[in-house]
Every structure is written in structure tokens, then in C-alpha cells.
């Protein structure tokens, strides 16, 4: 696939998959063995990834990802994005704080020769999200 198609896929990854929770778009854009790797967890199949998207929508009401900038070539892409939502469920053992949260992050993506997403490595601002939901205090309290 070309650079433009890959940029479009990353835009849809953020808006249709993460913001709208669209499972059909997951099936369209993502390889069955998609690896989604975060600093503290990972999924290794498309079904595990669907579960993660679903869970995150339960934890963060109105979950929205805005792709701010995308760099792409014929096999890879990187995206700087902003996440926002309301923390209404348990996240990393932190109970719902009912606070509106927002963090930035960057994700690196790889595409298969067929143009499906096969791997993504995420660097998100877990530190700031923990601070926003009062999780740092919980770390000290054990």
C-alpha cells in the first residue's frame, strides 16, 4: 500500500476504531495476529485487541482519540495523538474518579504487504493519566 493509504488507515484507526469503537473497521484494517504493545500491557490477536477497545470505552466515557500528526511511508507510520474522556471505570486498579482526562501519546505502526496493520507500539503519558485520576496517591498507599 502507498503512503497516502497508510495515512488514511492511521486516521481511521484513531477516529473509527478508538473513538467510535467500530469493530467492522477493526476487521477491515487489522491483521488477525495484530500485536498492540503498550508500556504496561499488550494484546497479540485481533480478538484481544477488540476486547481492549471495548474495555477502554467502558472505563473512559466518551473516549476520543484525535490524530494530530501522522508520518507515513509504504510500510510504517507514526502518529502523535490526543486522548480524552471521562474516567468512569477501573483503570490500572484505580477506581472511577469521574474526572475528565486528556493525555498525548505517539504510536508507531507497521503494515503487512497487503496493507493490514500487523504491529503497533504505543508510548502514552501513563504518568499524567495516573496523576489525573489520582492514581499516584494510590501507588503510595499500596
Amino acid at each position: 500500500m502507498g503512503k497516502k493509504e497508510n495515512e488514511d488507515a492511521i486516521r481511521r484507526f484513531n477516529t473509527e476504531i478508538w473513538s467510535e469503537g467500530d469493530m467492522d473497521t477493526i476487521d477491515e484494517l487489522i491483521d488477525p495476529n495484530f500485536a498492540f504493545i503498550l508500556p504496561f500491557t499488550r494484546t497479540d490477536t485481533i480478538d484481544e485487541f477488540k476486547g481492549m477497545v471495548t474495555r477502554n470505552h467502558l472505563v473512559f466515557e466518551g473516549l476520543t482519540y484525535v490524530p494530530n500528526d501522522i508520518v507515513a511511508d509504504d510500510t510504517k507510520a507514526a502518529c502523535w495523538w490526543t486522548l480524552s474522556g471521562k474516567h468512569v471505570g477501573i483503570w490500572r486498579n484505580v477506581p472511577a474518579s469521574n474526572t475528565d482526562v486528556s493525555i498525548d501519546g505517539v504510536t508507531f505502526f507497521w503494515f503487512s504487504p497487503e496493507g493490514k496493520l500487523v504491529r503497533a507500539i504505543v508510548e502514552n503519558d501513563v504518568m499524567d493519566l495516573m496523576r489525573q485520576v489520582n492514581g499516584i496517591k494510590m501507588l503510595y498507599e499500596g
Partner: protein
Amino acid sequence: MSIEANKAVVRRYWYELWNDKRGEIIDEIAVDPVTFHFPGGQAHQPPSLHKWFETALVAFPDVHFTVDIEMAEGDLVASRWSYVATNTGEFLGRPATGKRVIDKGIDIFRLEDGKIVEMWVAQDSLGLLQQLGVLPS
């Protein structure tokens, strides 16, 4: 500048500046100040690349980066990196811990006329502070 030329500047950033500790090249590869977009949760938010280099080398003088992946398009270059370093000096107002840490991240650079003008930085600050014992695991 071409995409390849921009990638070459960013490689100098990683290898000559950080790994070879050649602070004198900062003004060759970057404007002053670079516009930084640090994660809100990153405690260390230096105002300039000069200050960043200076303070980082006090805390982690043996820092060594590996760039796992790079890509570029237009005026942007993205790098997936990791580093190993030993905390042998003051960091964030705390004394040295002597601990060896590993951190990973992704940076996006914007270049103009062969110099870095803007950077978006994403890394695991929580993991770093936990490795240093600053925050409980």
C-alpha cells in the same frame, strides 16, 4: 532539505550528541530554543536542548541510546528509541540512586533548513520513576 538529509540530522542527534556526548554540535543540528512538546506527566521539562543535554548528563552520564526504527516524510522524522543509563548524579532534586535504568519512547522531529525546530516526545516516565524508586511499583 531532502528526507534523507533530515534523517541524517536526526541520526546525529542520537549518535553524536547523546551517545558521543558532543554538546558542541547542538547549534549545528538544532535551532535554539527547539519547541518541545513534552508529555504532561514528564517531570523533567527543560527549556532548551542545551539545558536538557547538560542536566541529563549530570543525572545519567553514561546514557546510551539505540534507535530501533526511523521513518521520515516531508519535514518530519520519527524515531523509536530506547536507552540504558546509570543514575550517578542528582535527578529532579534527588540524590543519585546508582540504579541502572532502561527507558523506551518515540519522538517526532520537525526540521527546517537542516535543523531540528520542533520535537514531540513520548516516553514511559512512570516506568522510569518506578525503576529509580522515586515512585512505588
